[in-house]
């Protein structure tokens, strides 16, 4: 699991050792529409909505120990916060999109 940017052991621990529930929510992440919201907002240059979506995703990926995507989102959220650094955010976004795509496709193949 470490290979796709997920710290499985840390995640299980966060769910108080309940691996079944953790795994259930790992796969439920595939149905989560927050990333689609983010993607749409970025395309529409609606950076306010993008901030909230990224912020929510940051919380979820952190809690699910999807650490690679989480770390990228931490940086991304700060760029979007109060539209601090939109240029960097726009430049950084494709990297996040790729990490998300990798994560999702690997999860699907499991």
């Amino acid at each position, binding site marked *: 699991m470490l290979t796709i940017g997920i710290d499985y052991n840390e995640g299980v621990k*966060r769910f*108080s050792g309940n691996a079944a*529930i953790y795994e259930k*929510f790992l796969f439920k992440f595939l149905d989560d529409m927050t990333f689609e919201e983010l993607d749409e907002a970025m395309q529409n240059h609606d950076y306010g909505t993008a901030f909230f979506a990224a912020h929510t995703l940051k*919380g*979820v990926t*952190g809690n699910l120990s999807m650490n690679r995507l989480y770390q990228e989102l931490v940086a991304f959220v700060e760029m979007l916060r109060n539209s601090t650094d939109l240029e960097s955010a726009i430049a950084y976004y494709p990297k996040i999109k790729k990490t998300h795509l990798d994560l999702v496709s690997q999860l699907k193949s499991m």
Partner: protein
Amino acid sequence: MEKKIVLVTDDVEVNRVILREILKDEYNILEAADGLETMQIIHEKEDMLSAVLLDVIMPNMDGFAVLEHMGEEKLLDRVPVLLISADRSVEFERDGYQKGAFDFIHKPFDGLIVKVRLKRAVELYENKNHLNEVVSKQTELLQKQILQLKSQEKQLREMNSNIIDVMSSVLEFRNLESRLHVKRIRKYSLALAKMVMQNDSEYHLTPEKVECIGEASALHDVGKIGIPDSVLLKPGKLTPEEFEIMKTHTTKGASIINQLEWIEGEDIHQVSTDICLYHHEKYDGKGYPMGLKGDEIPIAAQIVSVADCFDALTSARCYKEPYSTDEAYSMIQKGQCGAFSPQMLKCLTLTMPEFKRIYEQYVDKL
């Protein structure tokens, strides 16, 4: 012991589930997925909630708005709120504290930190709420006791009043005084005592003491009960021996008062004794029974003495017509009824309008 109830709010299910997994062994968990649902559960379970874990970014009213509502409804004094956020900025925490959050829980969650923070919040508020309850119970009890004391005080005062009424009606029954005389003495004494309280702080009169002087003044001649009718009701001038007997109405009055041990309250007892014993003392020491001078004469007795003289002068006797209030006033000022202190004379001057009103209202109708 039953588990305590904690409300967990977050619009993202996985976040609620993690908190539930962390906390379910120690708490009963309620969940809400947005701000409105949060407020609804808070209102329904208000008295049972031990804490709220509150997500900040939620649809239909965010966490800060929920906090503000809770603050307006005085709920934050009773229930601790821990704000949940993926945000660790100082600005965010300042905002949270200012709006009344107790503490913060950060995403990604750490089981131990969540448990410890929540436990501390719950325990602290339990102690605080318990103390508030104890204090408000004790306050309630004290207020009840104060009310009880006040009603007892009122009963005692009424009892004293009754005693005074009974004593003065004994005098009346023997035709020694008229009911109106007693009433006038009370009114004159009360009015004059009020004036002394306002003008001469050296006598340390209080509104309570003033009331007391007014009431006790009715007893000033109670000792006359002990004077034989042959002396008391003698129409002509008294012989020196008879006058000596007459003078004993002061000491007799004081000893009657002293036998009334059952009059509760130091003040009324002392003031009544002073009035009976000393209301014939004079400022220059020429009065009786002790020949006290100046302010050796208790203030209550000085006051009643003026009232008594004024009333004697303005009342008819078998040997004289009544003087007018103005005549009586100037006779007292000139010392024709014996000497009074300058303060007393000044206060009489100031009280004259009131004395005239009392006279008009209670004058003996012939």
